[in-house]
């Protein structure tokens, strides 16, 4: 029996190591202090994405690695972001390949845009000159592009595929990685997601009136849309017990609309409930909730209702997207990375919390949530357990629960 009780699935699912890059920095050691400080100074104003508008974008400003020459045909910004994150855990992945064999190591990558940014430049070239640029290769653009690229880079010979369910892609990657371990098809899985800012998403969300010109203020009365972001986060997931474990996954489809959530939060609530059931926990077993918190009118309204119905007003909550932006298909992996760092940083039962950065103006029509202020700490007497929400276009909802095992 594992440490979290009888309801647990057979075999642990440990998030062994994390590699991450986002607007706040090139790796977790840079990112984490800026998360805790609520540092929004790196949001970049850009006037080149949507005609006539300046958008604050959470873009990665650090230089990205070049892809190895034999894999250059995959050269997209999304794949370069993925490479930057994966290189941080490369040693651990290669050790897993040595230990278990290349065919026992898998790869699940979430992405929503893949190489759409490179596709934009190629199609503009085609519109202007009647031919595609010589630098373009369809391997950059195709929806599953990061899967063959990362598998080839890392020497993975087990299952390798991409999941693309819009903004829940990164969460679903962890769900499928756990299944590969449970099915005993793999002994280790590299799981995470990558996505890059591009004109299509900025203009598309703009056309749907979902993008804010100012940095987003989730759950505020003044919220007017999201801050678009980008980045990548990957975990090495293994079956060994201990450390930080994936305890629960809850997935559902909303079946209501392609771009707007169920206004009452029924889908969000069902996903959170399914994750609790999967983890064998009741709502009071969760100490903190990483909100999807896009800063759009509809998301924040429905999500606060769903969270309030299930957890009341006493559970700590915050939306990391005000800091790291909405990194689309990579958002859940990046935000799970922040939660992972939070659990890693705890000492003697005291855990720092991701602050909720906004304008301190509660929306009178939304139920109250216990939003984390800078410096708030979680006091966890035993095992801290946290939940992360992600909701995507097409009504694709996924909640994840992770927790830190007590020392043996």
């Amino acid at each position, binding site marked *: 029996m594992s440490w979290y009780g009888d309801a647990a699935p057979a075999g642990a699912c440990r998030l062994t190591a994390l590699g991450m890059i986002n607007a706040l920095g090139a790796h977790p050691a840079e990112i984490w202090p800026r998360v805790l400080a609520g540092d929004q100074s790196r949001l970049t104003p850009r006037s080149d994405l949507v005609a006539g508008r300046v958008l604050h974008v959470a873009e990665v400003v650090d230089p990205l690695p070049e892809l190895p020459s034999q894999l250059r045909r995959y050269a997209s910004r999304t794949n370069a972001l993925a490479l930057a994150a994966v290189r941080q855990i490369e040693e651990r992945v290669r050790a897993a390949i040595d230990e278990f064999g290349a065919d026992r190591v898998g790869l699940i990558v979430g992405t929503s845009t893949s190489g759409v940014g490179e596709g934009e430049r190629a199609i503009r070239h085609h519109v202007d000159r009647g031919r595609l640029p010589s630098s373009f290769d369809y391997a950059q653009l195709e929806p599953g592009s990061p899967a063959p690229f990362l598998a080839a880079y890392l020497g993975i010979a087990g299952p390798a595929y991409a999941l693309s369910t819009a903004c829940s892609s990164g969460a679903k990657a962890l769900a499928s990685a756990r299944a590969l371990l449970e099915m005993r098809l793999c002994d280790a899985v590299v799981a995470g997601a990558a996505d890059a800012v591009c004109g*299509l998403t900025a203009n598309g969300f703009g056309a749907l009136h979902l993008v804010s010109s100012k940095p987003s203020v989730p759950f505020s009365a003044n919220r007017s849309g999201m801050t678009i972001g980008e980045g990548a986060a990957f975990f090495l997931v293994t079956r060994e017990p201990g450390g930080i474990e994936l305890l629960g996954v809850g997935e559902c489809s909303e079946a209501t609309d*392609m771009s707007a959530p169920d206004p009452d939060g029924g889908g969000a609530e069902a996903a959170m409930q399914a994750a609790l059931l999967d983890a064998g926990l009741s709502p009071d077993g969760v100490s903190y909730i990483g909100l999807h918190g896009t800063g759009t009118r509809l998301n924040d309204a429905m999500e606060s209702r769903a969270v309030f119905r299930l957890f009341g007003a006493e559970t700590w909550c915050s939306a990391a997207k005000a800091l790291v932006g909405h990194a689309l298909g990579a958002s859940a992996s990046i935000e799970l990375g922040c939660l992972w760092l939070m659990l890693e940083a705890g000492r003697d039962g005291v855990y720092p919390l991701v602050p909720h950065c906004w304008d301190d103006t509660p929306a009178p029509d939304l139920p109250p949530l216990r939003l984390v202020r800078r410096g708030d700490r979680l006091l966890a007497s035993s095992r801290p357990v946290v939940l992360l929400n992600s909701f995507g276009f097409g009504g694709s909802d996924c909640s994840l629960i992770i927790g830190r095992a007590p020392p043996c």
Partner: protein
Amino acid sequence: MLTASIERWAAWAPGLENADEWDRWCRAPAPLGADGAPPLASVPPLLRRRCSRLTRMALEAAFRCVSDEDMGRVTTVFASRHGDAASNVSLLESLARGEPLSPTRFSHSVHNAPAGLFSIAAGNRRPSASVAAARGTFPCGYLESISMLTRHPESPVLFVMADEPLPPTLAAFRDEPPGAYALALLMVPGGEVDFRPAMAGERASRREWPDALEFLRWWRAGGPSMTLSAVASAWTWSRR
């Protein structure tokens, strides 16, 4: 070993619409057409209008494969290598010309558009995954379907693979057997079809037809086993 039974199946391609036509095709395959779209009579017109040709094919196969009583309770896996490449190229052309983007076209450009539209049309609130894996998309989608069965053994999985040729702008990158098609399989745990990583010496079949249809040919009219490659791995199906 990952075992499943295929309880029902349905496929659609231009000129190949019912099981008899497909069984004849499996025994004596001929090149697939690339033009035409299915009627998708089971989806209300308002919703149907928002479906691209790819989604229409996927949903035609999906709705033929599930009974009315199952359509709300199946979990789903939708796989496509290219997704809606034609629509996406046309969105990027609009963007290049500085035209305003249609919010509806944008929200339907996600890879999980067929999954989302199926869930809406079927009133299905169950878990769903959308897979892409370059030339290994079919075996990986099948694997994700087995994974879905493992995670949610209480209900069948509806696995739908659909693809169409890359649009003319990207024609130079066509590297697979041509044709537009959708295949839907209703899968339940245990039973008749084993699936596992290929063993040393098991060679992948020659790819004369899209992988999903190579699978259909094997399952309806083929030998004891079949192997297909996927990215860096290869996968073998065999009959019990």
